[in-house]
């Protein structure tokens, strides 16, 4: 009897494994999408895709992690999709590390990264920053260490010979600092990107980048694990067609930012844009 007690747990695990395997065979309808929580445009697009696919009878699971972790997971053939790859500049280096990924389509064309200041700041170009370094307290408020934007900013500091230090913590800390500075009408320079709801919520502008350190317009793309298109050809088609223009994107981002329930907001947005969604779902 005592022996049986020790066998209980392994047997339980075995039963679950068998059950789980049976489940996996019939559930090719399960789709996992990696998402970086805090990237407004990625969160918004991922939730819209989930709302559409759930209606089509799929079961979409959103996995929250950082960019590199998601890419590594896709490279292992585990996570199916990631809708937030910025090319040709921001994520080029990260993507080169994982050759086993497939490009499915472009979701948005006018992505832009760079240094951002509030509109009332009377500086227009990165080259002018050194003349006003005391007003900015020698600081550029950055996002996470290791992000493509952070690396770009480090390069900008060297190439423009800026007498500034980049302060890195997290995206949300950067936005909080920015909001506080605007409330107090202080000068502040942050690293930012478009599309993002902060441009709808606050009056901001990009600083000109004559040396093109931050590149030009960027595309946001969907990438998948290697054999995804083979397993789900109809979905590969859908993601190749899915595309937001400027108007749709800023409308979606504003609605997402104002809502507490992202899933419900995404569903509502899909219902309101049925023609657009239908054109993505068309088989031809």
């Amino acid at each position, binding site marked *: 009897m005592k022996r049986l007690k020790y066998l209980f747990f392994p047997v339980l695990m075995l039963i679950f494994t068998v059950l789980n395997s049976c489940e996996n065979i019939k559930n090719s309808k399960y789709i996992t999408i*990696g998402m970086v929580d805090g990237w407004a445009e990625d969160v918004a697009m991922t939730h819209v895709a989930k709302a559409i696919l759930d209606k089509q009878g799929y079961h979409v699971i959103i996995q929250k992690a950082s960019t590199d972790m998601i890419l590594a997971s896709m490279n292992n053939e585990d996570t199916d999709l990631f809708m937030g790859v910025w090319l040709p500049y921001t994520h080029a280096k990260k993507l080169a590390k994982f050759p086993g990924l497939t490009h499915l389509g472009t979701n948005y064309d006018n992505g832009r990264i760079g240094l951002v200041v509030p509109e009332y700041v009377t500086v227009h170009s990165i080259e002018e920053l050194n003349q006003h370094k005391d007003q900015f307290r020698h600081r550029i408020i950055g996002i996470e260490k290791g992000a493509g934007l952070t690396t770009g900013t480090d390069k900008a500091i060297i190439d423009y010979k800026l007498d500034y230090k980049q302060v890195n913590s997290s995206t949300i800390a950067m936005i909080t600092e920015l909001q506080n500075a605007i409330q107090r009408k202080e000068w502040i320079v942050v690293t930012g990107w478009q599309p993002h709801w902060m441009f709808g919520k606050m009056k901001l502008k990009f600083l000109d980048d004559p040396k093109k350190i931050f590149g030009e317009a960027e595309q946001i793309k969907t990438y998948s694990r290697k054999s995804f298109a083979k397993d789900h050809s109809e979905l590969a088609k859908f993601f190749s067609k899915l595309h937001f223009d400027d108007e749709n994107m800023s409308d979606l981002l504003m609605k997402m930012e104002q809502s507490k329930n992202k899933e419900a907001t995404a569903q509502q947005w899909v219902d309101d844009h049925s023609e657009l969604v239908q054109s993505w779902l068309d088989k031809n």
Partner: protein
Amino acid sequence: MNKTIDIGQYVETAINWLTENGKPVFDVIKHLGNSSIMGIEWVLTNTPFYVIILFFTLLALWKAGKGIAVVTAAGLSLIFLMGLWKETMETLALIFVSTITALILSIPLGILAAKSKIAEKIIRPLLDLMQTMPAFVYLIPAVLFFSIGKVPGAFATIIFAMPPAVRLTTLGIEAVPKDIVEAARAFGATNRQILFKVELPLAMKTILTGINQTILLSLSMVVIAGMIAAGGLGEKVLEGINNLDIGLGFESGLSVVILAIILDRITQGFVKKKQ
């Protein structure tokens, strides 16, 4: 940034080699881990909430007295009313599997370290490394081996939560009075009998303290595991942080605290009963 010694390069090479060549092994572990966590999660989320609250309340009443039983019932009801029940059960499943696995690995290691001087010399620095290496560092190999999801979360949690169980097992067995062991030997007890009939029962209180510490440490890893899509309360805490949602962050944090108090008092109760 001049590097004269590049240890990181060797570590990276080793990890990459493991990732490429260990895939079949990791896949089996991933599958086993996923099934057991998912299975326990399934049981916990499909059992009606009042049954689970009742179970924990009775367990608390039996092991930790009336006061804690009231706290347990009230705390778990609060979690349910805050709408974080599903996440709490996910976290509980992750802790359960991580703790069980950590104990299966660490108690034999602790016994080994108590029995052999050489083993202790090897195990001790390893434990120091596991406990002091910043937990985020484990996330990188965890994701390379097991992708994102629950299993790498459990993996990182196990590494972080194992050491106290190993240390306290060793401590407990070393503290067994030598004359009792001698007496048992004089009556002709084998090594095996001495371990199971004399040393382990006498060391049990210390070992249970180690188990209690392991459970609490695995709880503190939950938020970090949330960064690699392990789900549960950790993900909710991060969601609160990433969206400047102070309310959500506080509520999920509070749920972690409630869970910690309940698990701590109940396991403490097991220790006290041993006296």
